[in-house]
């Protein structure tokens, strides 16, 4: 039987991804698998600063990219301290598209991702990103609710 070798963990650095990361680390240790940490940056909308000169949008993009990469590097360092093999991938675009693409490219055996499991009425909604990944991923997807379990 084939083994789980690569576990993809998409992160938005939010609290909602933290339980999923813990789960991914535990599974990676148990399966002696590698974690592929993915952050997808959605480029800031050029319409936010309407009327602003194009150069300031380019500056904004550079700043956003730099900040996202720095946070990804910090997340990578934290995961390494857990003594698991981990690599990081940075992508830009629509999160669901990039997660599915990265899973294919990395030949992930499992995707472990958090869902924004808020309480109350919105508890019944699965995050839209997680929902698309669950529907379209070729490999199994482990969804971990942010709270309540």
């Amino acid at each position: 039987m084939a083994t789980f070798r690569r576990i993809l963990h998409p992160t938005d650095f939010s609290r909602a991804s933290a339980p999923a990361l813990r789960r991914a680390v535990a599974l990676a240790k148990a399966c002696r698998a590698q974690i592929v940490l993915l952050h997808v940056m959605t480029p800031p909308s050029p319409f936010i600063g309407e009327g602003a000169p194009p150069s300031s949008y380019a500056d904004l993009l550079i700043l956003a990219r730099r900040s996202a990469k720095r946070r990804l590097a910090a997340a990578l360092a934290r995961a390494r301290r857990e003594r698991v093999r981990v690599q990081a991938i940075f992508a830009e675009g629509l999160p669901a598209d990039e997660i599915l693409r990265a899973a294919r490219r990395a030949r992930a055996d499992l995707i472990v991702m958090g869902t924004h499991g808020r309480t109350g009425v919105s508890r019944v909604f699965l995050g839209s990103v997680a929902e698309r990944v669950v529907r379209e991923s070729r490999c199994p997807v482990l969804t971990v609710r942010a709270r309540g379990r």
Partner: protein
Amino acid sequence: MAADEVTGGVTRLLVPTDFSAGAERAWAEARRLAAQLGAELVLVHVLVETPLYSEGPFTMKQARGVFDAARAWAVKALGEWTATAAAAGISARWVLRTGVPYKEIVGAAARERADLIVIGTHGRGGLDRALLGSVADRVIRLAPCPVVTVRDTE
């Protein structure tokens, strides 16, 4: 924790099945995970007793006969599926419930103290690839533990 190092905090996987191709794929993935984690598998099937006797030519007795046949078939199939895991050296058992599938699955996960549910996204109720199976969808949202979804092959 030392135990977690080996099992990844997962000692019991609950695998709902409606015996569809999607469920078969989920069962295969669950066996793969259980083998690697040294976890136990609990296969669960939910019998749905549609009210056959409410209309038409069915008498209560005939309806009972239909349900009994369905139950006997499910018991046999559950035994066969469980045997595929046992043959690979994985500890596995099955549970048969009657009721509304998603409710029984969520309930079984709590009762069995499952650490993970492994479920196919499309069972026999699945119509459209664009839609997430309604059972899987509800299980993801309501389960007491994390859920691994397995899509059927295209």
